[in-house]
């Protein structure tokens, strides 16, 4: 009886592992490949470890098997999340069949900060985003009016954070300095264009 249970679990685990191998080879982009490998590897390791523990039928083996299962269950999602996040910033492409990319426009690709919707019930969506003016930025030293953020890019500057103080609702004649942080509001497309223009 124990043999049958152990053998079945090991075969299930091995089958999951093979699925992981097929998944990493056949899935169309990195993110779906990761989805296949992490889930399948976690399940595969879980089944195989349980099968081995049942085969030995000793407490010390069971403890080790459970330790491996716990480790894999805890570490695999964290590692996959970090790889996925880093790859998204690195510009690893999504497959052509992707229907919706819900992250689009919500990440500040320069500061790696996730931004939330300013007014989630509105359509089109409005985002509030923080962007730093670096000393290399084309906007450093210009006034707000000269940058054309409002006129050309349709992104409104809500406030400027300069060191420890904040300039709320800045006028067009406020001069931007390197190190300033702009708090912008606009649609994801407008903000993307604005961030591109701010550059640096």
């Amino acid at each position, binding site marked *: 009886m124990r*043999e049958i249970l152990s053998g079945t679990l090991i075969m299930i*685990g091995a089958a999951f592992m093979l699925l*992981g191998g097929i998944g*990493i080879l056949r899935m169309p982009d990195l993110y779906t490949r990761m989805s296949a490998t992490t889930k399948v590897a976690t399940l595969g*390791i879980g089944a195989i*470890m349980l099968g*081995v523990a049942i085969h030995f039928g000793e407490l010390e083996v069971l403890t080790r098997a459970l330790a491996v299962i716990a480790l894999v269950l805890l*570490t695999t999602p964290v590692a996959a999340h970090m790889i996925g996040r*880093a790859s998204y*910033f690195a510009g690893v492409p999504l497959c052509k069949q992707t229907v919706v990319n819900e992250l689009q426009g919500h990440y500040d690709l320069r500061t790696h900060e996730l931004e939330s919707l300013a007014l989630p019930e509105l359509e089109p969506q409005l985002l509030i985003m923080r962007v730093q003016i670096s000393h290399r930025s084309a906007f450093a030293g210009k006034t707000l009016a000269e940058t054309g953020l409002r006129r050309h890019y349709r992104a409104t500057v809500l406030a400027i954070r300069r060191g420890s103080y904040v300039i709320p609702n800045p006028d067009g004649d406020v001069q931007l300095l390197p190190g300033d942080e702009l708090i912008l509001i606009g649609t994801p497309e407008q903000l993307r264009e604005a961030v591109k223009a701010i550059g640096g």
Partner: protein
Amino acid sequence: MIGMTQIAWIALLVMSLAVVLAFVRLAYGPTLSDRVIALDLIGTLAIGIIAVYAMVWGLPVLLDVAIVLALIGFLGTIAFASYLERRAGP
């Protein structure tokens, strides 16, 4: 009647095939991230292979190796991820 040893060898064979498939992805890429997850999967497969191997040879001590491998694989992937992220942005 198939015994435990035969089942274990079949499992080892199937997992080795999975390693080969992951290795194709590791060699082919196309991005660095693909290679990192392929390496990660090979590490996970190695844990499974070691566990079944421990069973075949009746050596439960080998499971300690599996624990260490699980830890090191995680640390390696985290290191790769932080390197990838640093390379991606400022």
